[in-house]
């Protein structure tokens, strides 16, 4: 089981990038709502090499209600990653299953390892 970070590292209502690859690019976006943490692969479905944020840990639109792709402005629902407007309309972010154990965010067993 892979520990991603501490639960407290993810601000409630906010988002952070996690699991940097060898080039230092965060491969995972974590979003916390209370005790629930959702994870998505940090890549817009529009291109194969399109990280979502514009700055370290900056992934949300102005009022924090959607994930925004800082490449072309696509907006994704936080709860299921579905794109509501933008170049990847009708597609969705790839969800990564997580579990919380002892105050830590972990990749759920069987979650694909990210490269």
């Amino acid at each position, binding site marked *: 089981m892979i520990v991603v970070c501490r639960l407290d590292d993810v601000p409630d209502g906010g988002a952070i990038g996690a699991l940097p690859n060898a080039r230092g690019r965060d491969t995972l976006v974590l979003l916390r709502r209370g005790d629930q943490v959702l994870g998505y692969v940090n890549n817009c479905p529009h291109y194969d090499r399109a990280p979502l944020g*514009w700055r370290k840990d900056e992934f949300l639109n102005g009022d924090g209600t959607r994930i925004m792709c800082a490449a*072309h402005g696509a907006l994704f629902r936080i709860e299921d990653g579905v794109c509501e407007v933008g170049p990847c*309309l009708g597609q969705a972010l790839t969800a990564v299953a997580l579990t919380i154990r002892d105050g830590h965010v972990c990749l759920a067993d069987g979650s694909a390892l990210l490269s």
Partner: protein
Amino acid sequence: MRIIGPDELIFGVDNIQACRDFLKDYGLIETAPDCFEALDRTAIILRETGDASLPPPLPTATRLRETVWGVEDQATLEAISGELSRDREVRTEASGRLSTVDDAGFRIAFQVTRRIKLDLAAERINSPGASPGRAANEIGANEDAEARPRTLSHIVYFVPDMDRMANFYIQRLGFVITDKFTNTGPFLRPQANDDHHVLFMIQTPDYMQGLEHLAFHMQGPTELMLAGSRMVKKGYQSFWGPGRHKFGSNWFWYFNSPMGTHVEYDADMDKHDGDWVMRETPMSKEAAQMFLFENVAKWAPGGPPPGKG
């Protein structure tokens, strides 16, 4: 039609503080509230999404509300007004700026340019066989260089019908095609600018219509690398580059931005005149760039192997 190039890009955003931070860190100078200028005064303008002064948004994800083109003189404005009034409403604002819409539905405006003439040095290099670019004892690697964007270079739109869109700029506004990616789109140059392109477009489904990227010219490749490295150091997300394009020959480095568009540094673009014969090739990885690098953390070789020192 003596059109020079994009003078101002006006955005309506819901995250204005993040956009301000980005544009300042990118190197533009805030000369009036939410007006961020390059050295020649070409500018990015930020407004809140609901600002009543903004033209209506497109129904897509783009935050670009208006592209303002700079022209040489009042006579050009009158010629544009006469031409476009034939089949669409052209409003003349109190400032004298013309406001209308292009054939893809983008809001466009025209004004006597806000650009000031720059008188600045190019990047200077030493090259065997050529006379020295720098005097003796003059240092080339200056980490403290300001590296400010000099001028708004070009914009790239996603458009649902590239031929219709290109024909509007060619037939109605006098742009010429310098080069073309088959089935993707043409690179366009207006009559009062010799840069390889100020406008490029990419054919997409209609729900993608919007601004793909904007770019400012830097002094040269060294300042491009310096400015881009500073962005990376501040935590900004590099998207593509640094590298060098084939068409246009410009060095490039693209970043994601909170305006929901890519923002590019470019440097050393080709210049053309009426003698140029356009090239055409299918868009591909090979065609898009001569070479591509990726920024990595600083490192240096040297010294004894670990544990032997």
